[in-house]
């Protein structure tokens, strides 16, 4: 394993996607921070084999991942960004839907942890038949990956696949159901910039109906104790959303009143053709985030967006690029860290492999022997012992 040959190390993606607006100064040396603590976390053992959604997680599960994510943020801000936690393990990215940032983020996360990353973009919507999907899963399973990251246009497809494979499965977005790592990275972003999520007023605005991000975020933010509001035209408000534990608004100004964080959602072009919405300009007029509407939130309110943005449709450029209020690029940075935390945590929970032949990887017990460049005491970054 020669980490510096990783194609991402010098790729332009790194320069554009992963440059946060205002990075804290680098630590004196460019070495990864000293690794301390017990990566197996004596206090709490994350009990899940897969990450299929936020639903099913409890507060400790989420906080465990966020705290580990915090550590990886620090690592990612060093010049040498390697931890050897997943040395020798294989991570397969299986994307049945086009993706730039999520796929890239998982690739980078996997490589930084030392895994061998294989990305299989199967971006065709025709691969929707259950049988084909399961066949694909069986084929992949036979190659003995350790971690499988899946995005699929059909809700529930990732869960279906997870039943057919032996490795850990991470849902990178299934249809309009869940996108758990997005919710985790959003929570990490808010926690680092605003503070404790408990009691914060957080508005999620836009196409809630078709958004897996919204579903995961409502669940995650609720678990963490936030007051969640959903703001959308009625055509884009899911039936029964009032029972999600969120307050429903149609009027932006009323919904944004007193909010600490405003999360905008992407509006798909095909929603603006007169079926769900009459036009992009009407949508922007009533639900696009501009200076005036944002003024109804707290003066200190932060703005987030899972990307990619439709500037001038759901968000005004001036807000999206705002130096102090926009957290949009920071969200991307947090994405890598939180995915590293997820990958590491799930790898540790993998069952012992009985008939391992070529994949004789240690099951990441925290005492794994693999080392990475510059690491002195251990491969992973443990969560501090409480």
């Amino acid at each position: 394993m020669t980490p510096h040959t990783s194609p991402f190390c010098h790729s332009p993606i790194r320069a554009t996607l992963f440059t946060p607006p205002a990075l804290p100064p680098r630590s004196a040396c460019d070495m990864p921070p000293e690794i301390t603590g017990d990566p197996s976390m004596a206090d709490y053992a994350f009990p899940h084999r897969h990450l299929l959604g936020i639903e099913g997680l409890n507060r400790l599960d989420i906080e465990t991942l966020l705290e580990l994510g915090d550590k990886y943020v620090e690592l990612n801000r060093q010049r040498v960004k390697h931890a050897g936690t997943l040395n020798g393990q294989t991570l397969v990215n299986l994307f049945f839907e086009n993706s730039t940032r999520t796929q890239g983020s998982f690739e980078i996360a996997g490589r930084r942890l030392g895994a061998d990353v294989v990305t299989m973009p199967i971006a065709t919507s025709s691969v929707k038949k259950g049988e084909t999907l399961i066949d694909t899963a069986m084929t992949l399973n036979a190659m003995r990956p350790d971690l499988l990251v899946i995005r699929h246009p059909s809700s529930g497809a990732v869960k279906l696949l997870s039943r057919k494979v032996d490795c850990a499965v991470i849902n990178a977005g299934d249809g309009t159901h869940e996108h758990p790592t997005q919710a985790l990275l959003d929570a990490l972003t808010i926690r680092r910039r605003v503070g404790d999520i408990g009691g914060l007023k957080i508005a999620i605005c836009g196409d809630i109906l078709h958004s897996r991000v919204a579903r995961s975020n409502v669940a995650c933010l609720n678990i963490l104790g936030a007051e969640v509001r959903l703001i959308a035209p009625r055509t884009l408000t899911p039936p029964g959303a009032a029972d999600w534990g969120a307050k429903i608004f149609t009027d932006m100004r009323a919904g944004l009143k007193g909010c600490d964080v405003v999360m905008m959602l992407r509006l798909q072009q095909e929603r603006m053709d007169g079926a769900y919405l009459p036009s992009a300009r009407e949508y922007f007029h009533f639900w696009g985030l501009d200076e005036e509407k944002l003024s109804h939130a707290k003066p200190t309110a932060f703005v987030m967006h899972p990307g990619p943005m439709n500037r001038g449709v759901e968000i005004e450029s001036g807000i999206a690029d705002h130096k102090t209020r926009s957290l949009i690029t920071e969200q991307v940075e947090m994405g890598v860290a939180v995915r590293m935390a997820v990958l590491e945590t799930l790898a540790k929970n993998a069952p012992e492999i009985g008939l391992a032949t070529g994949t004789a990887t240690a099951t990441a017990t925290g005492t794994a022997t693999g080392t990475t460049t510059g690491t002195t005491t251990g491969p992973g970054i443990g969560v501090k012992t409480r």
Partner: protein
Amino acid sequence: MTGRTAICNARVIDPATGRDEKGGILIENGIIADVGAAIGKATIADVKIDAHGKTLAPGLIDLRVKTGEPGAENKETLETASEAAAAGGVTTFVVMPDTDPVIDSVALVDFIKRRADGVAKVKVHPTGGLTVNLDGQKMSELGLIQEAGAVFFTNGDKPVEDAGVLRRIMQYAASFNALVASRPDTPALSKNTVMNAGAFAARLGLRGTPLEAEWIALERDLMLAETTGARLLVDCLSTGRSLKAVERARKAGVKVSCSVAVYSLFFNELDVGDYLTYCKVQPPFRSEEDRAALIDGLKRGAIDAVVSAHDPQPPEDKRLPIAEAAFGAVGLETLLPALLSLVARDEVPLLAALKAVTSGPADLLGLPQGRLQKGAPADLVLFDPAAPWACDRDDLSSRSKNSPFDGRKLEGKVLRTWVNGATVFERG
């Protein structure tokens, strides 16, 4: 109008409050400054008008008027329609969007408003098309069009056939608490029909519009209003069973209101008589039973608005065999006389009849007029409820003369009409 005008010696009727007393009205700067028995000859005013005991009521509000502007000015313009309105005691009317081009954008709503401000003698409110070009598929910019001044949204006489489209439109409209009007009709059942289905149509050899065409669409619309929470105006229902359905839904909490064309209260299918094309309208004149059921609904206050359904058509579209003739009848000038005739025949009390053309529609649209209240605009009509006359289409102010009342005897005549305190019509 500046200064103080007192109208005294009148029978003052205000359906909003049930007021029915001798007295008068004091107008100041176009606004009603005072109402009641105290206003008489001794009231200090710049202008005094003696009503000679005739009836003074709020000017009428008509929720369904078509003109030909823009696109078919040969039928009617906003100006000629407003003259007909003033002559009929109608001081506010709402124009349908089915013109050429269709009123389905902010710019066209603005056009109607500006045009009416310039030429109309009475108040004109635009509506917006529910769908772009009334195609029944693509939702119009409901939010922006409502902000521009459309009072409600309708697809006119082309119902939105796709229930999925209508459901989304209603959901979306509910975001703005916008009022969605729908004339209940199932084109698959009503296509190429001429009059009410039944024995009389069969005898005349004409294709009849079955009642189910209205019932099926109505039940669909009511269900969608119930599940989406949208405000629905059932436009021109025409049967007793339809009215019952609306009342049942209303009782169950659905935000539904309804209107009835005045001709549905006045005529029945037999009035089509000798293939009279002026009596070819949508919805058609129904059976006497249905007419009686609607009269009963009007008495009970179950009908929110009675409308003229004014639809001018030129002779070239009406002087044809009835199956080929256009639908539609003018009605602005005969709306009040037709209602007053029903009152004179003791079919309905005066207050109940007037309520459905004044405070009823005003409350639906949230308008300040339509009532005799301090501070309300002085939009008024003075009429003689007992004056008999025979309607002659050539005497109508409307540019088109296609009136089913042509040649019929009516009771009740408009004497004078005021808009914002200014006289816009006075019978010579």
